[in-house]
């Protein structure tokens, strides 16, 4: 039944939003609430909702804390693009911060570049665990792009029941 829906929607973009906000830690909650509101029409389960919110929170926290080194400046911007293709959510979170020298190392569970700051080093591990797919692109001095996607909701099942 999943196939039927995929055929109907294909890879067509069915909705998209773009948000740009200052790299302040206050905006971490704003970003995850925005993505939660965006996927609500797909009837996500509580678990899916919380998975997506956690993953987005991790990515935005990384941009604020590492990308922009907690400068909390109004000039530093984070961009969040959310795209729906049928019931698949794609989120792209990008910053123009300092970038990551070794993406592979940064993505290792428990690795943190700021051990003195009580960071758990689980950010990327959580994004990987809670989303279906994760891609990280980064260039030192230019910034970082995190791309994640996840299939959401029971719409496929409801469609086929109807």
């Amino acid at each position: 039944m999943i196939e039927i829906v995929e055929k109907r929607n294909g890879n067509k973009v069915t909705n998209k939003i773009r948000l740009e906000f200052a790299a302040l830690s206050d905006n971490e909650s704003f970003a995850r609430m925005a993505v939660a509101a965006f996927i609500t029409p797909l009837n996500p389960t509580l678990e899916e909702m919380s998975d997506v919110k956690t993953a987005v929170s991790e990515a935005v926290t990384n941009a604020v804390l590492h990308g922009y080194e907690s400068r909390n400046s109004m000039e530093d911007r984070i961009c969040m693009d959310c795209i729906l293709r049928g019931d698949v959510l794609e989120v792209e979170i990008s910053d123009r911060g300092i970038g990551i020298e070794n993406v592979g190392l940064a993505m290792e569970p428990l690795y943190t570049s700021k051990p003195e700051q009580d960071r758990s080093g689980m950010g990327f591990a959580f994004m990987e665990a809670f989303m279906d797919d994760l891609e990280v692109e980064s260039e030192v001095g230019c910034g970082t792009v995190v791309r994640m996607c996840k299939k959401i909701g029971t719409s496929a099942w409801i469609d086929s029941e109807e």
Partner: protein
Amino acid sequence: MDDFKVIDNYLMIRLPDEIDHHKSVDISTKADRYIMSKKVGNIVFDFERTTFMDSSGIGIILGRYKKIACFGGKVYAINTDNRIRRILLLSGLQDIVEIISKG
């Protein structure tokens, strides 16, 4: 504030509705002040009100654990719902934290 309470040798911390990096800095600083000034041995994190937590919550727990573990203290997480428990287990915290679920 009522969210931090010392009972005998235990520091009880009532965590907020949402725990992220923005809130975690404040919680950690306050907790450390209690650990130092009241010389508490053990810490209890109460998740009763908490509906959202990201890896910053793990950072809070790990950081406090490091501060008291060398004196033989223990850390407890109580009233955890399924989502919070999943995040704690995913981080391997069950080895150092006693997790007590809701109800």
